[in-house]
């Protein structure tokens, strides 16, 4: 198994710079948001935004680099939540004892589901992970130990770190933001690493990647493990934001809005999942229509988005129209690379995004 080699010092510096370029603006925006949306209700929406965005990164990290859309990250996320509700609520663990366990459990669960599902490829993979997710959700609903379909209730607050407590909603929001930024940074770092480039190579041309000696299964399971770890920690945070949890919250159907959020935001852009989560949480309250009408509008937005801007909103913001794009390419020659992207493709499909590949190779 080949390991990441950082290469020259210059690449390491560039990677740190790229990470800072995403994380620092995100931090500023997320802090500024607490002043713009300061009411209790808005702060609650912001908190959900942060957690959902983290789950979004868990999905996007394998989707973006390896072209693997794993719907079953829903149940991995749920595992983190249930683990927290159970161990903290029933067995009096502290948050910081559960958190590492949830990260490991999330990674392991994602790898197990991924390994079984990867026997089937392409179209089948999506549906098999869908079914695996439903299986686990169904079993959780029949387990008395896990509270059945009524689920579990956790009323505690996140445990204090030294003397720093999390007993106000604002402090809990900042806790979520810290983990969100870690997830975001991970997404950038992996994209700039040899590991990330290997995944992109596999996504673009599986046969060629294999002939270069890349172990496809191992690399795919590794990226699923990273996503699973993020989903696991997001689950821990979710247990505190959503005191009563039921299995159906994590069903594949319930998880589809997260997928939609990643797509609408733009999976190929570091800010995409965050943008998508923000819209997903705030749009219904802004529109302030009856639930049915906002559901209708939400569906219409999704349909129009995938047909008109398949790259997502972040894609429009970052790349602009084709005209702007060519202007940007002229200007940015030599200074940094455009963000990696390709035609969305199924796990195992050989993508046909040759135009984009050419664009990327220009950098």
């Amino acid at each position, binding site marked *: 198994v080949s390991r990441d080699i950082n290469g020259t010092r210059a690449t390491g510096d560039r990677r740190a710079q790229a990470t800072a370029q995403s994380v620092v603006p995100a931090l500023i925006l997320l802090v500024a948001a607490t002043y713009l949306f300061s009411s209790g209700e808005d702060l609650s929406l912001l908190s959900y935004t942060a957690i959902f965005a983290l789950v979004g990164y868990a999905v996007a990290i394998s989707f973006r680099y390896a072209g693997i*859309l794993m719907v079953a990250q829903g149940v991995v996320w749920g595992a983190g939540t249930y683990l927290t509700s159970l161990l903290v609520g029933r067995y009096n663990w502290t948050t910081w004892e559960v958190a590492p366990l949830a990260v490991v459990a999330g990674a392991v669960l994602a790898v197990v589901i991924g390994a*079984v599902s990867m*026997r*089937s*490829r392409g*179209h*089948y993979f*999506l*549906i*098999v992970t*869908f*079914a*695996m997710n*439903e*299986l686990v959700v*169904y*079993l959780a609903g*029949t387990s008395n130990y896990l509270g059945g379909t009524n689920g579990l209730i956790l009323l505690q607050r996140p445990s204090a770190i030294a003397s720093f407590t999390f007993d106000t909603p604002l402090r809990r929001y900042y806790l979520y933001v810290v983990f969100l930024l870690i997830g975001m940074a991970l997404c950038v770092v992996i994209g700039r690493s040899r590991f990330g480039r290997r995944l992109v190579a596999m996504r673009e041309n599986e046969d060629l990647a294999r002939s270069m000696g890349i172990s496809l299964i191992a690399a795919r399971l590794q990226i699923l493990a990273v996503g699973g770890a993020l989903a696991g920690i997001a689950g821990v945070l979710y247990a505190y934001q959503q005191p009563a949890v039921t299995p159906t919250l994590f069903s*594949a*159907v319930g998880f*589809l809005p997260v*997928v*939609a959020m990643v*797509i609408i935001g733009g999976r190929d852009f570091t800010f995409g999942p965050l943008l998508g989560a923000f819209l997903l949480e705030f749009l219904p309250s802004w529109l302030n229509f009856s639930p*049915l*009408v906002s*559901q*209708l509008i*939400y*569906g*219409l*937005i*999704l*349909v129009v988005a*995938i*047909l008109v801007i*398949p790259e997502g909103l972040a894609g429009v913001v970052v790349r602009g129209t084709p005209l702007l794009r060519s202007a940007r390419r002229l200007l940015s020659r030599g200074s940094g690379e455009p963000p990696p992207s390709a*035609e*969305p*493709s*199924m796990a195992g499909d050989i993508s*046909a995004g040759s135009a984009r590949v050419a664009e990327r190779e220009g950098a």
Partner: protein
Amino acid sequence: MGQFFQQFANGIAQGSVYALIGMGVTLVFGLTRLINFAHGEFLAIGAMTLWGLSGDGWGFWVNMPIAVVLAGAIAFVVYRVGFKPTLDVPLNGFILSLGLITIDQAVLSRLVGVNARTTIGSATGVAKISSVIIPWNTLLVIVITLSLTVGLIVILSFTNFGRIVRATSEDSYAASLIGIQPGRIIALIFVVGSALAALAGAFISTVFALTPYSGVSFVLYGFIVAILGGLGNPTGAAVAGFGLGVIQTLTGAYVSLTLSGSITYVLLVVALAIRPTGLFRTSSV
């Protein structure tokens, strides 16, 4: 023993529902490669239209075709506007179908409300075969499923049109070289498959209570049946559908209800672990 046969008959009834949905999925998904999770929505449209028309006094055999034609027309529009541009990128089609599910559920709930309801079927009463009791409406669903299976097999295997469909599915470029218009064939399969779902919905609603939200739960079964049966293979879908229904019912009656609820997913995972491309031959009928 009479008890066993009754359970078996219940299983067949349940299985015919799965087979009927799986048939539409295997056609659309197997032959056009569109991952359309909104397929189940046509089932809901069929059922809810039938319910909406039930006050007109024309009876089931007039209202049912209206529901099917309406669903077919909606399917055509959805295909032309939505799915056609995503044919090259199946994943976008999948996301699109999620949006369609949301829209359809909102519209249907607005039009007919969210209550679970059954519709009046064409028959009343029950059939009694020695000690086994089956409602006539259920028997009708079984008969319809079987005749559709046979009909599809005959059309796909033995007619010129069936050969054209299979050729398009296998290699649309090569098919276009010999004068077939793959775009039209794919549109036709999509519309027919969706209309089939509406037909299934209409018949199922005479037996089970459905809501505007029923489509999603049924479509997952449809995909599982289609995959177990081998994509594009109506025989496989029928066998897998009936088999699943019988196994599920018998497990529930004699083993445990928990296992009965999860057996479908377990079977899918185990089956795909053994044979990653389904239990039957794929798309060659």
